């Protein structure tokens, strides 16, 4: 729901290549040492909050609630907080909810966007220009401004507290249509023409020629849609009240423990909610970094 306008000029960068040291430059020049210290300091500063959360999650509640800056509590390391959170079981329910709704949102979003982008790129029909402009212009509409009428619509459709109410309003992502159209525009048309001459239908051409060619971009886009759906807060928070249907991030915010605030458990739960995305990032680091860098897609 919070995509941003892809405005980056098209560049062919691979962010992972680093600039080589200049010939004759010493690896330990004063400037490099200063830069290195600065970099390490900043990286530490950025990692500390997460490390602190990890440290807290591995404490006993008593140690966590006794304050101080010791990364390890008096009673030593313990996985008690994680075990309590997992035993309670809600994390599994919400994790499954997050997983399957995000997956469905990703499939639907990428599917309908690819079909539409293909039509905008390749097929001729009246009103094409106007429609495309309308879709792109809708990017300026902040989803937050639509929550009231959208919720009202869900009330009328009787879809509050249903999975469909959660999923459907999240599948419209105009930036994806834009990105895919730009990609299809660049695919050489001759490939398709050959198949068309052989009598293949449009859908067949799309399915067996265009889609396979688009695998990399579809993959990159899917990762982003998935991340966004997994992390989305505002809409799932509004449309779901039933704690059986909640996603992980929403449950983390909404549902409390009857035992009062349990700091170690809260951190353990937060880390469990973050874990899948950290794994996704480590697996797809290259695609994600490149995706952000080339399209500017995924801004909060």
């Amino acid at each position: 729901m919070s995509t941003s306008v892809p405005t980056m000029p098209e560049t062919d960068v691979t962010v992972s290549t680093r600039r080589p040291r200049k010939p004759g430059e010493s690896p330990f020049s004063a400037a490099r040492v200063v830069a290195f210290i600065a970099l390490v300091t900043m990286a530490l500063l950025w990692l500390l909050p997460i490390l602190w959360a990890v440290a807290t999650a591995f404490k006993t509640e008593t140690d966590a609630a006794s304050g101080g800056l010791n990364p390890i509590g008096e009673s030593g390391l313990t996985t008690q907080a994680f075990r309590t959170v997992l035993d309670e079981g809600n994390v599994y329910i919400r994790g499954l909810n997050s997983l399957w709704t995000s997956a469905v949102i990703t499939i639907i979003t990428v599917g309908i966007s690819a079909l539409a982008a293909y039509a905008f790129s390749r097929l001729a029909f009246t009103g094409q220009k106007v429609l495309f402009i309308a879709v792109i212009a809708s990017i300026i509409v902040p989803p937050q401004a639509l929550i009231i009428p959208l919720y009202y619509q869900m009330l009328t459709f009787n879809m509050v507290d249903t999975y469909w109410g959660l999923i459907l309003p999240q599948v419209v992502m105009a930036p994806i249509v834009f990105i895919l159209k730009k990609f299809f525009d660049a695919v050489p048309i001759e490939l398709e023409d050959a198949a068309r001459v052989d009598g293949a239908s449009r859908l067949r051409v799309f399915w067996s020629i265009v889609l396979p060619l688009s695998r990399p971009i579809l993959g990159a886009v899917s990762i982003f849609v998935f991340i966004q759906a997994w992390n989305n807060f505002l809409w799932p928070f509004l449309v779901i009240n039933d704690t059986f249907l909640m996603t992980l991030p929403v449950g983390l915010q909404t549902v409390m423990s009857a035992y009062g605030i349990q700091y170690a458990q809260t951190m353990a739960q937060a880390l469990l909610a973050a874990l899948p995305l950290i794994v996704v990032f480590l697996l797809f680091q290259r695609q994600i970094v490149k995706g952000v860098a080339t399209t500017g897609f995924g801004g909060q």
Partner: protein
Amino acid sequence: MTDVAAERSAIGPRADVVPEAPGTGPTAKVARRRNQLIAWAFLAPFMAAFVLFVIWPLMHGVYLSMTDQSLTGAGGRFIGLQNYTEALSDPVVWSSIRNTVWFTVISTVPLILFALVMALLVNTGLPGQWLWRLAFFMPFLLASTVISQIWMWIFNPELGAANEILQRFGIEPIAWLQTEHIDIISITIATVWWTVGFNFLLYLAALQNIPDLQYEAAAVDGAGRWRQLFSITLPQLGPVTVVVVILQMLASLKLFDQAYQMMDGGSSDTSRPIVQYIFEAGFTGYRFGYASAISYIFFALIVIVGIFQMTVLSRRRENR
């Protein structure tokens, strides 16, 4: 065969810019109609969702904003512009707009400066690239609720790490999220930590796009590192900075998640962003009509900022 040929002449490499070929004869007409149908079949699923979940709410919201519709389903009488006149004289609307704009100002600057410094440092090619990227970018991938929980814990007035650190330096503890005016700064700190990675990657990509040749040429001319930074690197970051500022401002104006979450469901007159007031008016206060009116004031704010950015942008282009 003729069908395909006719259709081919109708499309061309970029169908949307090539005018339809003037069809001749009944075959071409049929083909064109078929093509229309095919195109609409491809478009239908997306357009259906688009109309249902964007266009319709957008229009229906205008109507709602002129009614006394309630969350409970009651009400719904047409009351003209009453909600808008009330909103424009509602001090909370103004304070929440002020908070939103203030947040945008104080978050955008550090979000750009930190990102730039990070990118410059990483781009020096120091070893450990994946680690730097992980450290700076990973927070961006976390859900808002996750980062809110982490920072609420750090900002806990009695047990939090932030106050522990202050006390080590002999500074009085601060009620980070419970003190007016400081609350929005605490939210900003968390936000900068959370989202700077996105800008960092945009900058890093731009830096790596600057051809090495330029640096080599400058080095031959005897320009030192600092000279190179100011005469080659920074000027070339102009375009990406424009992009970053635009994206950042629009994102900051939509502040809701972390502000709502970190205030733990409460709200203060110095931290409540406009989106949160929409939520409070509509869901806590049941006033769907009134909340719709505030939504359109918010929408107007976004559009005004957008237009302002476009004008500045086009003026810059003309000046070149």
